[in-house]
């Protein structure tokens, strides 16, 4: 177990492993998204109240879920990096941040586009779900800004890991905001007591989209970690040997 763990933490090993992993994540992920998009747009029925406008959930829900998931990668990467001094874990955090920020932005934009016709507003200050998700976006921006403002990689890793850990509490707030306080945003649909409050014909495309988005997120993350590892290890012998080898770093 520990041997496997240490091997995983070795940059050259992970660099090659990630390359093998990417197609296995990306191809099924894109296939699931293609199915989910088709079934969500053409097969699933209209909602009894929202009509066709509800179909934006097929992008909104996976994005919102990944906006929190990516943050947890960042925070756990930071914690493992701080506690076990594992450089690769910091690289995971650095790689996850821009992807997470992109999904957060997507969740906010799709929610706003849906909110205008349904709620009657693009944005409501004071709504706990909306506001905490916006804070999540700012946490990502802060994390990336802090990283890029410190030249020394080891120092940047430590400082940004602390920031990521401090911000974890906000992820909890985003998740429970609709339960703890009265909110304009509706409550949980999928993890509601007594099963998802959604028709099966609407639900399956959504589950396909969530899984598809997650796999594509994994592929993007693996790819960004590779780049991050390569940059961080640019002065090491294995990188030089790999580049000079006949395969040229494949």
């Amino acid at each position, binding site marked *: 177990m520990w041997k496997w763990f240490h091997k995983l933490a070795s940059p050259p090993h992970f660099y090659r492993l990630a390359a093998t992993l990417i197609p296995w994540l990306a191809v099924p992920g894109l296939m699931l998204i293609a199915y989910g998009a088709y079934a969500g747009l053409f097969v699933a029925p209209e*909602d*009894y*109240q*929202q009509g066709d406008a*509800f179909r934006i959930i097929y992008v909104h829900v996976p994005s919102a879920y990944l906006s929190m998931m990516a943050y947890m990668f960042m925070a756990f990467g930071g*914690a493992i990096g*701080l*506690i*076990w001094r594992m450089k690769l874990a910091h690289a995971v955090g650095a790689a996850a941040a821009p992807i997470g920020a992109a999904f957060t932005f997507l969740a906010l934009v799709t929610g706003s586009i849906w909110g205008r*016709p*349904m*709620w*009657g*507003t693009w944005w*409501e200050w*004071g*709504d*706990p779900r909306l506001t905490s998700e916006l804070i999540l976006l700012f946490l990502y921006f802060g994390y990336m800004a802090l990283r890029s403002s410190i030249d020394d990689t080891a120092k940047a890793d430590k400082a940004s890991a*602390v920031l990521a*850990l*401090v911000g*974890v*509490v*906000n992820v*909890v*707030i985003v998740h429970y905001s609709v*339960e*703890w*306080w*009265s*909110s*304009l945003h*509706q*409550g*949980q*649909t999928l993890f*509601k007591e007594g099963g998802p*409050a*959604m*028709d099966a014909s*609407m639900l399956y495309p959504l589950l396909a989209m969530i899984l598809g988005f997650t796999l594509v997120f994994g592929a993007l993350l693996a790819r960004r970690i590779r780049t991050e590892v390569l940059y961080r290890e640019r002065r090491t012998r294995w990188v030089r040997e790999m580049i000079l080898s006949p395969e040229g770093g494949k």
Partner: protein
Amino acid sequence: MKPRQQRMLAVGLAVLGVAIAAGLTLRAFEDNMMFFVDISDVIAGEYPEERNFRIGGLVVDGSVMRQEGALDMSFRITDMRCELGVEYTGVLPDLFREGQGVVAHGAMGDNGIFVADKILAKHDENYMAPEVAESLAKHVDEKTQTLREGTTECEQP
């Protein structure tokens, strides 16, 4: 203690500390975290008098009155316990209809009618059946839409 365990403890305590601080802060500002005030609380006089606030509830069936040729309208809003009259002038969101959850922003008028300057429709988490706001769930049996046993009638001060 090994240095690694010390670091583990430090990280754990830091996260715990931030969580406690955030929890206490949010608890202290609980009233401000609420997006809207329940109708029962409004009737009981528990609402900010100095500023505008939001109320949330269901539009009472058959209560919507519109003025011919104008945007003026009025309706009654309920949390299945207390009812409150609302006046509004303006455009309504698509989802506004009788029996539907709404959030109204405005202030209490002198005559006990809530004067709204903005109406938002609240959508529920059900993608088939109608929703009742969480405050309603406490007082209403979901299936029969009747008052649950032990729920008190609307109390006025």
